[in-house]
C-alpha cells in the first residue's frame, strides 16, 4: 500500500512534476480549444447539409453521410497515424506545413466533427416540424427559419451531449503523444523515466479532471437558468 501510494501520490514528486506536466498540458489546452472551436463550426455545417431538403441536394447529403460514417467509425489513433504519418509522406509542400500540432488539430477535428454532427442533427430533428411550419408561414425563408427558430432551440437541447463529446475530445488530446508531440502525458512520461516515479501521470490526470468539472457545472447552471426563464413554474 505504501509502495503504491509512493509511486503515484508521493507529495514531493507530485509537486515536483507539476511544472513539467503543466508545461505539456498547455499544448493540450491549445489543441482542445482550437479543435473544439473548429468542430463546433464544421459539425454545424455538416449537420445543416445533411438536413437539406429536396432531390437537388442529394449529392451533398450523401457526401455528409459518407463523411460521418467514415470518421465516426475509424479509431482516432488510426486517423492520427494516417494524417500524421501518411499525409506528410505525400510530400505536398506548401499545402500542409509539417508541425505535429497542426496534424493533431486536423485529426481531432476530423473525428470529432463526425460525432458532433450527429449530436447537432439529433437536436435539429428534435425540434417539432410545426415550429418550422410556423416560421415559414410568417414568410421567413428556409434559412431564416433555420437560423432564428430551429437552430436556437436545437442548440439548447444539445448542450449536454455536446459537452460529453468535448470531454472526450479533451481527453483524446493526450493520444497525440504517441506520435511525439510533447504534451502533458508525454511530459509525465519523461518525469517517470527521470525520477522513477509515476506521480507525473497522476498530476496529468488531475489536470484533465480539473478542466472538465467546472465545464460540467457551468453547463448544468446554463440549463437550469434557461429552465427557470422559459418554463412555467413547477407544478
Amino acid at each position, binding site marked *: 500500500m505504501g509502495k503504491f501510494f509512493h509511486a503515484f501520490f508521493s507529495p514531493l514528486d507530485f509537486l515536483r512534476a507539476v511544472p513539467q506536466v503543466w508545461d505539456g498540458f498547455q499544448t493540450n489546452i491549445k489543441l482542445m480549444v482550437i479543435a473544439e472551436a473548429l468542430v463546433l463550426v464544421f459539425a454545424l455545417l455538416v449537420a445543416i447539409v445533411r438536413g437539406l431538403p429536396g432531390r437537388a441536394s442529394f449529392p451533398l447529403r450523401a457526401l455528409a453521410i459518407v463523411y460521418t460514417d467514415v470518421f465516426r467509425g475509424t479509431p482516432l489513433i488510426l486517423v492520427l497515424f494516417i494524417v500524421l504519418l501518411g499525409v506528410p509522406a505525400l510530400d505536398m509542400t506548401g499545402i500542409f506545413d509539417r508541425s505535429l500540432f497542426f496534424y493533431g488539430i486536423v485529426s481531432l477535428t476530423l473525428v470529432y466533427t463526425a460525432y458532433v454532427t450527429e449530436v447537432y442533427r439529433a437536436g435539429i430533428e428534435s425540434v417539432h416540424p*410545426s415550429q418550422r*411550419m*410556423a*416560421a*415559414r*408561414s410568417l*414568410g*421567413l425563408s428556409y434559412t431564416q427559419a433555420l437560423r432564428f427558430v430551429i437552430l436556437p432551440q436545437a442548440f439548447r437541447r444539445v448542450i449536454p451531449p455536446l459537452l460529453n463529446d468535448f470531454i472526450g475530445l479533451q481527453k483524446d488530446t493526450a493520444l497525440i503523444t504517441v506520435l511525439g508531440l510533447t504534451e502533458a502525458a508525454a511530459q509525465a512520461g519523461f518525469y517517470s523515466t527521470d525520477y522513477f516515479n509515476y506521480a507525473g501521470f497522476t498530476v496529468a490526470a488531475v489536470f484533465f479532471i480539473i478542466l472538465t468539472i467546472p465545464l460540467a457545472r457551468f453547463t448544468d447552471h446554463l440549463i437550469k437558468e434557461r429552465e427557470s426563464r422559459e418554463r412555467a413554474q413547477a407544478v
Partner: protein
Amino acid sequence: METNSHFVTLENVTKRFGDLEVLHGINLTVDLHQVVCLIGASGSGKSTLLRCINLLEQVDDGTIVVDGQAITGTKVDVNALRQRIGIVFQAFNLFPHMNVLENVTLAPIRARGMSKTQARLRARELLALIGLEDKEDEYPDRLSGGQQQRVAIARALAMNPNLMLLDEITSALDPQLVGEVLALVRTLAHEGMTMIIATHEMSFAREVADKVCFLDAGVILEEGPCDQIFSAPREERTREFLQRVIEAGRL
C-alpha cells in the same frame, strides 16, 4: 370571368397524400372583408385546405388565386405570398425560446426588413389590442393557452396580412379560455379582416360567418349563408353532422 371580382378563388383544388386524396376538386370563393367558416368532421380536409392556401401544402391539381394573383404554379415567391396571408394554428406554435415581443417582431424584422423600433412599436399596438401589453417579456410556456393563442394571432397580424386563415384555433383550449380568443376574432371580423376559419364552434360560426361551407370527405358538400346552413341544410350529410354537433351540446 367573374373570378376576378373575388378576393380568393379556389378552382378544382385537389390534394393527395400518397394514395389518399384529401381534397377532391374544391371550388370556393371569398370576397374582400368576408368571413367564411369551414365546418365538418375531423379529417374532412379543413386544415389541409387552409394549408394549401398558405402554400404550406402544395396542391396537386387546380388553381388558387389570391388578390388577383395565381399562387399555384412554379414561379410564385412563397415567402412574399405568406407575408400577406396570416395563418394561426390549433397548437399555437409560438417560438418557445423567444419572449412574446420577440415572437411578434421576428417576422416583421427578418422577413420584411422592418426596423427594430418600428416593429416593436407595431407589436406593442397589437399586444394592446389582444390585451396582453403587460406580458411582452414573458415566455410562451408561462402563458395560459388562451393567452398563447392571442399572441399567435398578434404574431400573424404583425405582418399586416390581408387574409387570415384560422385553423381550429380554439380546439386545444380549455372551454373557459375559448371566449377570450373568439372575442379577438370577432374584433378582427368587425374591422373587416378577410378570414377563412376552420372551426368546431358552431355558434361562433353562426355569429361571424358571412358564408359557411360544410366539408365532407374532401369536398364542399354544401355552402351558403349561416341561416340556410344551420336552419335549413339541404344535404342529408350536413343534417347528420349538425345533429351530432347539437347532441354534443356545441350549438
